[in-house]
Structure formats: C-alpha cells, structure tokens
C-alpha cells in the first residue's frame, strides 16, 4: 500500500514536470502546426544552464530559483531567435520546419556534450526543500511535493493567460482558425514568436526544476521529447486541459509501468498513444486533427 502511495506521488510529480514541458509543445503544435522536435533539447539546455548558474559561473553563485528563472529566460530568448531567424524563413512549409527543428536538436545535443562533457551532473535539492513529509508509514520528499505545487500554480497562471487576457484570446483564435484570425487583424506571425518563446522558457524551467529528480545528462533530450509527444497526442494539441490531463496520465503510466513491467515500460507508454491516434486522432481534448 505504501509503495502504491509513493508511486502515485512520484507519478503526479513527474506529471507536473511533463505538463510544464508539454504545455508549450502543445501550444506551438496547435498554433504553428509543427511538432517542435527541439523541445527535448530546450528542456536539456534549461537543465544544463540552470546547473551551471547554481554551480557558480564567473565567481557568481545563484540561488536555485533565480538560476531557474535565468535559465528559462535565456532559453526563451533562444527560442525566439530560432523562430525569428529560421522557422520564419519557411512560412507555410510544415515539413521543412520540422526538419529544421530536428537539425537544431542535433546541434544542441552536440553543443551540450562539448560544453558540459559526458558525465551526468547532479543538482542538489534547494536547502529549504530538502526535508521529508511523513504521512502514516509513507515518507515523501518535500521537494517532490513542491514541484507539484509549482506545476499547479503555473497551470493556473497559463489558464488565466489563455482564458482571461486579450493575448490569450488571440492565441486561441490562432489555434482554432489561423486564416480567419489573420482576416480579423490578429498578427498571427507575431503570436508564433511569443508562443515559441513562452514554450521554450517553460520547457527550460521544467528542465531545471526537474534536475534534482532526474539529474542532467547527455541524452536527456531524447528521453523527454517522446514523452512530450505522447502527452500531446493523448491530450490533444493546442489544448491546455489536454496537456494537463495527458501529463498526469503519462506520469502514472510511466511510473507504474517502470515499476510493474520494467521490460515493457516503453511499450506500455506508447500503446495508449497509438490507440488514441487510431481511434480518436484529435486526442482526448484536441481542437483539431493534425
């Protein structure tokens, strides 16, 4: 019973991280109609930059949260540059855009290997969250609970942004019908840059707050990208609720799959995605069929 409880909490924590990663992926996919194959690299870049800021850079030591914010801003700026300079060159060619994101992910992976080497970097849990919480016989690390809270807060903020602000209304309009949104005077191409930067920043933030749990290593990008893909296909692209529900489902499938059928973990993970693709191609809460 205790095992199940611990597994459940771990699943929700992992689901929270996945939500931060996949919310941006889903919005980018919804708006620009491209699966952004750099998303795993953005997660990894965030983790590496964050780890460097925490570990000290040019005699500067940053607090965990400041480092996380800095890394997120840096990667958000990188995302904006990629969108402006590269994807912008290929309007209306989704295939070419996918290929460019794939090429950038190769370059990012090699860049990380060059700068930070092949050894995994362990990031210490922030000191004030290093404790444990006891609930009966089960013991939960405080940090994992904090990650759940952070993910919830960001989910709420994103929901308010999308549902209550003018910018959010424009993004939703762009997702539902980009051509009609242009006709009514929304500058959809400007939204592309904003959403790409936002998604990149969120992925990087997920990378660094996930670092004390997952650690940072070469290949992290390849581990995370398929998960984001599964979440978005399950939940449906362009839908925040879809990413949220999808992330929690995938968090559970992943953790319980690893524990119960370690040999078939990936199979268990990808089967539901395949079923959704075949039976309900728009995903559980999707706004359109890719």
């Amino acid at each position, binding site marked *: 019973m205790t095992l199940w409880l611990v597994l459940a909490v771990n699943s929700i924590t992992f689901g929270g991280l996945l939500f931060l990663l996949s919310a941006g992926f889903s919005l980018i996919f919804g708006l620009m*109609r*491209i*699966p952004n194959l750099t998303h795993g690299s953005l997660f990894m870049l965030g983790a590496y930059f964050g780890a460097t800021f925490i570990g000290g850079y040019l005699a500067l030591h940053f607090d965990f949260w400041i480092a996380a914010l800095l890394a997120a801003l840096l990667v958000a700026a990188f995302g904006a540059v990629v969108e402006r300079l*590269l994807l912008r*060159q*290929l309007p209306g*060619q*989704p*295939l*070419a855009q*996918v*290929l*460019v994101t*794939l*090429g*950038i*992910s*190769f*370059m*990012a*992976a*090699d*860049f990380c*290997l*060059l700068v930070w080497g092949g050894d995994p970097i362990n990031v210490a849990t922030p000191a004030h969250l290093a404790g444990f919480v006891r609930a009966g016989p089960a013991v939960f690390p405080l940090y994992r609970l904090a990650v759940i809270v952070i993910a919830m807060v960001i989910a709420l903020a994103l929901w308010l942004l999308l549902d209550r602000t003018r910018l959010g209304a424009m993004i939703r309009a762009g997702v539902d019908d980009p051509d009609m949104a242009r006709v009514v005077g929304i500058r959809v191409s400007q939204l592309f840059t904003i959403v790409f930067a936002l998604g990149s920043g969120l992925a990087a933030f997920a990378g660094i707050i996930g670092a004390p749990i997952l650690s940072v290593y070469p290949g992290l990008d*390849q581990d995370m*990208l*398929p998960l984001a*893909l*599964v979440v978005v*296909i399950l939940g449906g692209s362009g839908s925040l609720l879809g990413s949220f529900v999808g992330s929690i489902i995938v968090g559970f499938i992943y953790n319980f799959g690893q524990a119960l059928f*370690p*040999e*078939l*973990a*990936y*199979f268990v*993970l*990808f*089967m539901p*995605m*395949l079923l959704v*693709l*075949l039976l309900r*191609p728009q995903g559980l809460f999707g706004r359109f*069929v*890719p």
Partner: protein
Amino acid sequence: MTPLRLIALAIAALALATLPYWMSGIYYVNVASQILFFAVFALGLNVLAGYGGLVSLGHAALFGISAYATGYILQAGFGHTVAIIGALVVGVAAMALYAVLSLRSTGIGFIMITLALGEILWGLAYRWISVTNGDNGINLHGRPAPFGIELTTATAFYYTTLVVFALAVVMVAIFVRSPLGAALKGTRDQPRRMNALGYHVWAIRFWACLFSGLLTSLSGILFVYYTQFISPQTLALTSSAEVLLMVISGGAGTLLGPIVGAGLVVIVKSVVSGFLERWNFLLGAIFVAIVILMPEGLVPGTARLWRLAWRRARGGGAPS
C-alpha cells in the same frame, strides 16, 4: 537519356566497379560499402518520402527489425539463406503493419504515427532485455558465402553490397517509370483528383510502402552482416532522422539524390569524425542549411544553379 548523362553513368559505374583497386586502404573500401548500403536504405525511404509525399520518421526501426530478425534466425541455428529470406519476410510484414496503422493520415499525422511506431520498436529493443539483450545487443558470427565466395574480406563484401545496390537502383528506376510509380506521384500531388479519377489512393500508397519496406530490409540485412552486431541504437529516432537527412539533403523524389545524400552523411559521420570531434553538430548544421538554402536538395539544387550559370554564360534571355 542524353549522351552526356550516359557517359556520366558509365564513368560512375566503372569507378564503383573498380573502387577497391584505386582506393587505398581497407578502411575506405569499408566506408564505400557503408555508403552503398545506406544508399539502399535512403532509396527505400525516398520511395515514400520523395515519390509518395509520406515522410516516415520511424524507418530506422524497420531497418533494425530486419537486422534483429537476421540475428535471431542465425542464433536459432538456421543457415544464412533462411536468415536472409526470413529477415526480408519479417521486414516487409512489419512494414505492412506500419502501413495499415499510419496510412490513416498523411502529412504531419503520418510523421507522428511513424515516429510513435518507431519509438515503440526502439523501446522494445532497448528494454525487453530478456528477449533482445537490451543495450548489449546481439552479435553475429560469420558472413554468408554465396556460390562459395567467402565475404570475410572488405573487398568481397564491397562487391556484394555493390550488386545489391545496383539491383536496388534498377528496381527503383523501373518502379518510378511504372504505372504504379506514376500513380504514386499523382497521389502525392493531387490525392483528391486521383481518387476522383478512380484510383485507389490507399492501395497505391500501401504497395509503395511494401516496396519501401523491401529495400529497407535489404539494407538492414547488409548492415547487420557488415557490423556483425545490432543494438537498439540502430532503431533510435536519431537513426531515422539521419536517413531522412540523406533523402532530403540529396534531393527527395530524385533517383540520384538519396545516393548523394547517403555519401554525404556517411562521409561526415565516419571520415570527418576522424579529425573533427563535433561532427554531430556539423550534421545538424548541414541539415538546417540545406533545408533553408537549398530546400529541393543538393542534386536538383546544383542542377538548377548549373542551368542558371549556363544561361548567364551564354548571355541568353531571362531564366524562365
């Protein structure tokens, strides 16, 4: 075919046939073998991605499944003939399953489903350790000896690969000129009109998938006999992306393009990596540069620049 092309083809064929005699060192002969079997792989993907407009990001898993099948059948104690035929059957059957699942959609949807299928197969190879031996992979012992010719030397293996490669080129050339090939290009450009004309779009795409699967299996078998080893890394997304890079960089939808692309990628991977550690970065940069600067690929792109320069040199009228 113009005389100029015929001469170029004859020179290329002669150069390939005599390669082990003028290429110094076993290493480079081996690199040439790699280029040739990866070219067969790229030709296979090109049938779908180039002529069919169906971009698969899970093709390395099909390549890998044939390689694993070869390994298993040999381990079970059967001979090389059974192994090769069995691996072809397994590869084409896997492709048929792939096709049934992924041909429900086209465009980005097709990419996502093939990506998912590729990841499933990779995940099985990687984690189902009791069956696949996980990351340690499967080792092969020995190469086949068709008609009593041992393929243990680099040169002998090179010629075997060259024969399969030539066969693949001829098969693709015939396919492209056949009614089925023409219909496939029709379904790529105007699927609805093809449907209205009475063509069975799904069936045309399905047959193209099977043909692509056959070439992919052939190259997978050559690969596993070449390396004598197969591990999950071969099935990973990076491998699928690499073969797609071969097709796109050379020129999708052309016969020569994937071959040039295979040469480019293999040379960057195995030769440039010898003196430049950051070859993966270079590969990514080439990818981005080609997509942005020469989206049609090296072969059609160079041909276009060449025609432009030719016209300029002759002082002719404005390029059409």
